[in-house]
């Protein structure tokens, strides 16, 4: 039951072979592919997809100390929270006005700082936060505090210097304070 076409006919094979041959020149692309991928790898590795990212910080207009303290005092004690970043990643806070018994420790992690700020922002009308980094604390601590302000949508906050009075109160509360 062989079909007539299946008979290996030398002439037919030749014809088939010719028909398969592409017209024009067949180039060997392999080396070109090699080169293209080599270049591709080089550029992929050498390229920097990095774009600097950051947080915007807007500082108040510097004015004399007098107007500044007046402004701070205009905030009601019940609205105010002060966060003091100490060296060695220690964090303390007090509500309202500073007093020795008011200083309480806090941790930088989610369970500590973020939960606390969330509660503070919820239960306080117009919350105001003062960030007071100690001169010797790590810059990272301030960044975390600023970041938490943004995360918890606390719009009113300021960076200030930690005062000698506060440091003295902390000393009297038994909190280790480095001498600066």
């Amino acid at each position, binding site marked *: 039951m062989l079909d007539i076409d299946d008979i290996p006919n030398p002439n037919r094979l030749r014809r088939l072979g010719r028909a398969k041959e592409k017209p024009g020149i067949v180039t060997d692309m392999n080396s070109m592919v090699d080169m293209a991928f080599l270049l591709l790898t080089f550029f992929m590795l050498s390229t920097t997809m990095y774009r600097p990212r950051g947080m915007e910080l807007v500082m108040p207009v510097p004015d004399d100390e007098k107007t500044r303290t007046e402004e701070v005092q205009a905030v009601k004690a019940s609205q105010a929270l002060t966060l003091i970043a100490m060296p060695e990643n220690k964090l303390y806070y007090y509500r309202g006005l500073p007093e020795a018994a008011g200083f309480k420790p806090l941790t930088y992690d989610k369970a500590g700082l973020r939960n606390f700020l969330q509660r503070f922002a919820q239960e306080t009308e117009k919350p105001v936060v003062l960030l007071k980094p100690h001169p010797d604390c790590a*810059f*990272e601590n301030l960044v*975390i505090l600023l970041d938490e302000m943004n995360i918890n949508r606390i719009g009113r906050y300021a960076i200030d210097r930690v005062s000698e009075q506060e440091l003295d109160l902390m000393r009297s509360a038994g909190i280790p304070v480095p001498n600066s």
Partner: protein
Amino acid sequence: MRSSALSRPKTPQIDMTPMVDMAFLLVTFFLLATTFKTGEIVWVQMPRSVAGLNLPMTDLLTVFVDKDGRAYLSLTSPPARRAWLQRHAQVNQVQYTEEEYRAFEMMSGFGVPSTQLRELLQKSPEERKRFVQTGIPAKVGDKNELADWIILARATIPRLRIAIKADATTPYKKVEDVIKTLTDINVLRFTLITQPKKLDDDAGY
């Protein structure tokens, strides 16, 4: 011809053309998208934050503060750097040679007092890498070279953005000096450069 067609098993012929097309397309993309990594003036381990403000790649002046508190300045784009140095030369009445200008264009930033600047510019790129830069004096006092340089940069580029890239472990007082320097010359809006972190990540302490 006949014998080969009969005996040799057909090797599969793969058409490479689309692959080549694609590879070259990608090469072209990376070629155009790439900006070669210019060695940064100092290595800084940035603190992490969830803030995602993208900074422009042009018209940006970065104040680097390394972990010992030394300040360095880095201005994007070489032509701007040349104009910056020209202004500095004009104001301080010093002359720089063409080679020194070219060296300043090539450096992404510097961190020496202006008295040492010429010495730094005259070094070869290899020597410069080994040269210990002591930082631009930022002490808030009657003379603040950091402030002078920033004022000159702002005069050179009207739409200048200013960023602080400080190390996570830098003592805050060193960063505070830089912030004070900025606010004193009425730069009240600036950016702290951080590296991204996820909302749920903790600092690890």
